[in-house]
């Protein structure tokens, strides 16, 4: 996998794919992905560069209000479809396992806006995301994380009275001897980095952009 060996024509195709993703043009993205495969461009390079770059551009566009959550969800779907097409052409033993994150708003908390933003941004950034919704209790979160062999659990809380449930998930993992299996990242309106450290979380993010950066750092 060597990006320096990419020809000018191949680079143009990769740029075309990036543009198709950024403009959320599904037809064009499918078409370019087929051409990329015909040209025998290493799919791993395509996933690592133009697709990752497109996800980053989308994140910045969202951050400055040029696009919205609905656009990000559609872009996430498009990226997943293109990656699935490309991955069929990667030998199984070279297939890089996608990092999987289980995300939920904790028990008693029905606020979904921030959690949805983080979930969508993580997915658009190439993580496998299992969003199990709002008001989810600790045992369900842990069960899902085990079931999908998650690498990370992301916990959202918008209320001071539901923040203790973020701690509960961590405490339960410790009690079950599973703490080392998952990185834990927390966030939400009243949540602070100090609180994250106090309850033994691995990471904290104040918004969706930071959540992606923190996930990349923790799962590198």
């Amino acid at each position, binding site marked *: 996998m060597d990006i320096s060996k990419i020809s000018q024509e191949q680079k143009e195709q990769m740029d075309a794919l990036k543009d198709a993703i950024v403009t959320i043009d599904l037809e064009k993205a499918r078409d370019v992905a087929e051409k990329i495969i015909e040209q025998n461009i290493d799919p791993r390079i395509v996933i690592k560069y133009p697709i990752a770059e497109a996800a980053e551009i989308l994140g910045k566009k969202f951050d400055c*209000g040029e696009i919205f*959550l*609905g656009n990000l*969800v559609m872009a996430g779907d498009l990226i997943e479809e293109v990656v699935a097409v490309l991955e069929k052409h990667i030998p199984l033993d070279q297939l890089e396992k996608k990092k999987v994150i289980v995300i939920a708003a904790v028990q008693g*908390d029905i606020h979904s806006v921030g959690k949805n*933003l983080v979930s969508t941004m993580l997915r658009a950034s190439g993580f496998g995301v299992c969003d199990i919704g709002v008001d989810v209790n600790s045992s369900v979160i842990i069960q899902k994380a085990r079931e999908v062999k998650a690498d990370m659990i992301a916990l959202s809380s918008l209320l001071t009275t539901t923040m203790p449930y973020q701690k509960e998930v961590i405490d339960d993992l410790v009690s079950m001897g599973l703490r080392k299996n998952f990185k834990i990242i927390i966030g939400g309106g009243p949540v*602070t980095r100090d609180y994250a450290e106090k309850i033994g979380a691995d990471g904290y993010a104040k918004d969706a952009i930071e959540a992606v950066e923190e996930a990349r750092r923790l799962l590198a």
Partner: protein
Amino acid sequence: MRLSFWEILSRSREGPIVEEKEFDLSIFKKTQELQKQYKIKYDPAKPIDMEGDLADRIYQAGVELFLDIGTYCITTKRVIKVTEQELQSEIKACPEVIEMGQGKDRVEMCHRDVEGDQEPIVIAGVQTAPFSDEEMMFKICKGCAMNQKVDGIWGGIIPKIEGKHDVIAGTPSEIYQYRKTVEVLRRAINSAERPGMIIVNNAPTSMATIAMFDEEMGLRRSDYMEVTGMSEMKVAYDDLNRTAFALAYGVTIHGTHSSVIGGFSGNPEGASIVSVAGSLQLIIVQKAESFRCGTVDSRVKSRVSRAQLWVAGTAIQGLSRNTKLIVDGNIGDHPAAGPGTKQYLYESAAGFVLSTVMGAHSAEGTRKFVVGNICNYGTPLESNWMGEVCKGAVGMTRGKANHIIKYILGKYEDRLIDAPEGETFEKLYDQKTLEPLPHYKKLYEEVKEELRAQGLKFRD
């Protein structure tokens, strides 16, 4: 005639099953389509719609959105839909006036017109914020209740029981502590000699909220039950539990829903449509008799960015012009800045002027947008400000409001991201006299004089 709540509940069990993501995207796509169809365009240079024609189109688009996509019940994963006839009957059958409070503190909350001279009801207080202990909560709430321009106050929570045990949502601690803190709130209004004043609080779960109702020491029938529509266009059975209790107990239902700029509402134009549609959901699905029509911005921790003012202002104006519903705006409730700063007063004033002029009440309290775990993060002076500004803006024209709001925006607009944190009650009030410290009082008077000079007619 209003559509039976039990019919709504049946539809929540029998309506079409839809994936939540599919529902979310349907909001996004439909609002994009509707803003083109109804020629809805946000112009940042005009934070207020002066003529009302745009607001009318936003109202029509909101009706169409609500009829087209319905309400998503996250408990059953089904969509609750109503017909146009049912919706129009519901709108006509909703009350134009509600009586709340008791005795000399009784008030009427009525439909307000755009630029109308009907009295706006102001329910202030450091809404749902944490207090360090009973004594401090009592002092702050009593101070808020003593403001004669305030018609009611919100309570909050003392987040530790016996000073050490966390109050946790969905556990016995939540029921116990919300019930005990509403007793503190009632003692505070009694001590302020306003025993019949409206008091409000809302716990995370319905069971703890219901547990606060008690005619002697808790919330009364003459107060109100707040029900919340989840953003965007959703409801859970836990919300509907509150409606069921309120219907059985006979307490006024007040709803609240927010569109999300940057969320599935999309751009400000989309959010204005969703703000109307969410309001309609509150009256027909959750049986609200009055409701808060609002918006949040996924990128701003305040409710009064220029775009938010436009969204909430046009949506409220559309509802006020096209219905006789009782609308709550309270746009200035959650500033980015903290108490004790000029920015807090500027931000909240922009929202309160707009709410009043567009035809709304302000019934959702006042506090910094994010208070987190910091206790006593608000004082009676912000409640006083809320009352002064809301009542001072009665009868103001949209043209005048536009002038004042543009002036105020210039004072805080570029400081929403790094807003000053402000101070807690302990740093802003004399703890013996319970009066604001001189520096805070001076700052308050300076902003008041500044806005008076711009044309805001305070009732001194």
